[in-house]
């Protein structure tokens, strides 16, 4: 239970817990001890040298990009060919006739409008169950069109940074939590869905389906900030949609599982991660158990799985084994 609370508080902006051997299981303490032996260190260093020539895999990246593309293109196909598969936009839709509503958009509307809307509740519950089943913030990395363009901006950012043209500026991760509260209060008090006016997810989704709009200038502006000023700043520090789905993800059966035994603690996973604070446990001596589930903020994007040279990080569906 304390692990769950900790995962939520880290998601909301708290610093990840420092290493504390008192929390650790006897087994993992022994493992860390063994890993600190000179022979083990020498072995790891040699292995890491060998791995430098390895090319990172793109297995999950390709799957994810296909997923984002399909999710968004199916709206377009439904509209243009009038096949009624998925009508609407990412904010709300009918999927073969069933109501779907983006959780954050639905919350904004409920707060602003203050009325019980049965179709919206049905859409909310349906989408909640759907994203609960597949990992919560997996919405971000597997469906959100802004995530995709933001990944491209991130590539540009890293290219520029490697050549020392720019440097990255971090924000406090609590910013997102404060904004989440502010936007909720603004909807409640003003009676307008304030966040929707600047949500790049809604803007992009509608632009893809209904044609380009002036609002794309705002999205382009955000990408410029991400390229030149702060890596992935919107998804990391601002977007309330991510917080909503992170709450769903905190109780989702789909998790990234960390296995401490083979890990070289080289930090490759943390360098590619959108939310590296969730991977604090992969630092040498930090794991509280032999196997650790990565926290609520994880988008299940699989970048760490692709980049890990030892297979210590993998997708896991909790309870699936016992079910089978």
């Amino acid at each position, binding site marked *: 239970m304390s692990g769950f609370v900790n995962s939520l508080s880290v998601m909301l902006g708290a610093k990840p817990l420092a290493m504390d051997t008192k929390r650790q299981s006897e087994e993992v303490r022994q493992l860390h001890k063994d890993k600190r032996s000179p022979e083990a260190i020498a072995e790891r260093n040699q292995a890491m040298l060998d791995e430098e020539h390895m090319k990172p895999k793109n297995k999950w990246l390709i799957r994810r990009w296909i997923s984002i593309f399909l999710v968004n293109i199916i709206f377009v196909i439904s509209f243009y060919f009038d096949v009624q598969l998925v*009508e*609407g936009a990412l904010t*709300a839709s*009918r999927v073969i006739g069933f109501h779907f509503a983006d959780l954050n958009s639905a919350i904004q509307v409920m707060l602003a409008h203050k009325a019980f809307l049965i179709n919206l509740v049905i859409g909310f519950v349906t989408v909640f169950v759907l994203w609960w089943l597949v990992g919560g913030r997996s919405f971000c990395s597997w469906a959100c069109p802004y995530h995709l363009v933001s990944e491209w901006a991130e590539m540009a950012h890293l290219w520029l940074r490697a050549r020392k043209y720019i440097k990255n*500026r971090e924000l406090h991760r609590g910013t997102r939590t404060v*904004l989440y509260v502010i*936007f909720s209060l603004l909807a409640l008090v003003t009676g307008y869905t304030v966040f*929707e*006016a600047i949500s790049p997810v*809604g803007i992009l989704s509608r632009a893809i389906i209904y044609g380009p709009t002036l609002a794309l200038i705002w999205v382009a502006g955000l990408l410029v900030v991400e390229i030149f000023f702060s890596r992935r700043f919107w998804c990391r520090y601002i977007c309330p949609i991510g917080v909503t789905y992170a709450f769903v993800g905190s109780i989702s059966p789909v998790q990234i599982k960390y296995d401490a035994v083979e890990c070289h603690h080289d930090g490759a996973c943390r360098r590619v991660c959108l939310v590296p604070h969730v991977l604090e446990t992969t630092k040498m001596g930090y794991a509280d158990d032999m196997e650790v589930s990565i926290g609520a903020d994880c988008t299940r994007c699989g970048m760490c799985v692709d980049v890990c040279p030892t297979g210590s990080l993998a997708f896991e569906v909790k309870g699936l084994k016992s079910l089978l």
Partner: protein
Amino acid sequence: MSDSKKTDKAPEKKKKPKKLSKNQRKARREFMRSVAIGGGVVGASLLGFFPVEKNWNPRLRPPGAIDEKDFLAACIKCGQCVQVCPVEAIFLGDLDEGFGIGAPYIDSRAQACDFSCDALQCILACPTEALTHKIDKKEQVRMGLARVVRPNACLAKEAKPFKGTIRGPDYNGLMRITEIDRWVPVKLGEHEFDRTVCDLCVKYCPIPGALDLEPLYENASRDGWLPVVDKECVGCGLCDMVCPVEPSVFTIDERKTWSDT
């Protein structure tokens, strides 16, 4: 962009000679940056107030739209109404409409709602009842009211005929003409009208009793008529679309009701 070294060495406040460690300075800069950018994002979102509060861009909303403020709150900006409209009358607001971004509107002169769907499809499509489900007949709709603003331009006033396409062959507005096809709307750019006295607005008004041509002169020495809007008018704007003179004889006062007049 590489001013970090300068700020690292920046002299600290002299009042309090408290020395901040490098980490503390870094944390302080991060905090200031977070406040600035977070504030900037909230500020940008609040700019959306101006267009709606100042009513910069009053819009004709689709059939069934509830009170404007509630409408903007309830609308989830998904465009399902856009997708079901058979005459493609509905468009979504852009950045310049503030909180109205993504909310549907109709430009009646370009493409009016002609109720060719019969069943108020946009209302049925709306998942949040921003288009209220309480109505199910076109006569119950209250989008606004038509008003004759340029009577002197009206062809009927001088008993003039109208023959040909309204607004030329390039105009791609759609309208259902039941005597031609009950289900498929006609492309107005391809349709030749022929009226001995122009009465297109009245003839094609989809609401019975909403618009009539009334004679201007008591004695029969002269012929002339003008369209007169009655309280049945729902503000769909079809008269505005079909009016062949440029600019239109009509305007649609969005959200105006008969009791306002």
